[in-house]
């Protein structure tokens, strides 16, 4: 179950735990069904409580960036813990302008 908040056309998803290929598949399905139903102007992924993430999480971010563009919205990534910032910076997704 996703922990979300939706107001003023902004959908915030509070991610938690470990994001890998296994958990990423479920997250992708749940997030996409939320954004398709709500059509938010902004999807905000909050990483405050994420303890681990590998490159599957980068794929998840890039995929949601694409998904939001298709829906005419934008994506933002917030509250990256230091240990996850490292892989995000390595990936270059910050060049998409998604980091807050």
């Amino acid at each position, binding site marked *: 179950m996703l922990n979300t908040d939706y107001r003023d056309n902004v959908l915030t998803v509070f991610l938690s735990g*470990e994001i*890998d*290929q*296994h958990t990423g*598949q479920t997250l*992708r399905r749940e997030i996409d069904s939320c954004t398709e139903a709500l059509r938010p102007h902004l999807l905000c992924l909050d990483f405050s409580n994420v303890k*681990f993430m*590998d*490159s*599957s999480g*980068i*794929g*998840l971010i*890039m*995929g949601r960036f*694409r998904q939001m563009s298709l829906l005419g919205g934008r994506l933002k990534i917030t509250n990256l813990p230091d*240990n996850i910032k490292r*892989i995000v910076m*390595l*990936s270059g997704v910050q060049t998409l302008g998604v980091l807050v």
Partner: protein
Amino acid sequence: MELKIPSRSINESFARSVAASFCLQLDPTIAELAEIKTAVSEAVTNCIVHAYDTPDGEIYIKAEITADNTLIIKVRDRGRGIDNIKQAMEPLFTTGGEERAGLGFAVMESFMDKVKVTSKPNKGTTVTLYKKFVRATNEKP
């Protein structure tokens, strides 16, 4: 340490936890632990996603520590193999479609000291990860 696990995505978390536990004897920093967990997660996930078409493939994980405090972790599958290893290791190269970043090897190379890949088409792939720990036990942290 040797481990054989089925190629199911549920095992990714188990595999990286075992590798992290094994290297605790090297007294790693929190950052080093995170690097090892991530690199092992990348190697194991690749076996699950790319090597096999079915969830009952076998993944072999072997870890050892050499006399000079180098951690060596081998992750091996008997799956489809990689035709062009150089191309596979280039950042952003992926055969995994839109939901993959193509960054697994780049992450392994950045988080470990050395990554060695050997592969034979239809025989399988072996990824060997190396990390040297310089802090001797008698040194002050």
